[in-house]
């Protein structure tokens, strides 16, 4: 069975996924983009790690700001 993630229109590269991960921190993504990103993260460990790195960055800047 052909998985949905393997279809060219839906499958995105890590480069595209990373751009969406960044954009997601600034805006809400359209449904299509959200879906493509979710599917990509299901099979991609690299982008899953990047997603957590981005989360750590945001949190770090918050903590940095709170410090005296």
């Amino acid at each position, binding site marked *: 069975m052909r998985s949905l993630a393997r279809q060219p229109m839906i499958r995105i*590269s*890590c*480069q*595209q996924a*990373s*751009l969406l991960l*960044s*954009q997601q*921190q*600034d*805006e809400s993504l359209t449904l299509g983009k959200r879906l493509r990103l979710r599917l990509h993260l299901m099979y991609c*460990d*690299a*982008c899953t*790690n*990047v997603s*957590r*790195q*981005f*989360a*750590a*960055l*945001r*949190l*770090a*800047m*918050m*903590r*940095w*700001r709170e*410090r*005296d």
Partner: protein
Amino acid sequence: MATEVIDSTLDFRMLAEHRLYLMKVARLQLRDEHLAEDCVSDVLTQAYEKRASFRGGSSLRTWLTAILKNRIIDLLRKQWREQPLEVPGDEGEGAIERMFDASGHYAHMPSEVRDPAELCQQDGFLAAVQRCVDMLPKRIGQVFVLREVFGTETKDICKDLDLTTSNVWVQLYRARMMLRTCLERGGFGHAQPR
């Protein structure tokens, strides 16, 4: 009369208590010690002059930060006007391209961050992040700080700095990608770098 003098002295002292905090932020944003000093002095003077308009609904620090942000946006507009980039917004493009192979996959596996919350409690990590932000190409860093330290919405960054939405997205994307590679070299999943 005497009471009034004491009150205003206290008032300025209260404002000045936030000076170091404002300096820290201004320095990260402007990357110039003298400019940051002048900027923070202006902010404190301005705040003192309009102290009657502080209603106390928000904290004093929040109020001062809002004044600082406006002052910084004025300065950035001036800086950016005076030193236009030859190719606007293309800083850092090559560095990002090199992270991927020809098919758009990561050339190196990004490190796993097991517990972002725990990591962000470490002073060493926060110091590493600050160093990495300081090393970003100047404008990319400035857009990133406006977004992450001041919490400015992207649409407001566009308006304030005359940038297009896609330009701001790209700058923030590059900032985050360069920061993550900078932190790969000591920060993510490592003991305190030095």
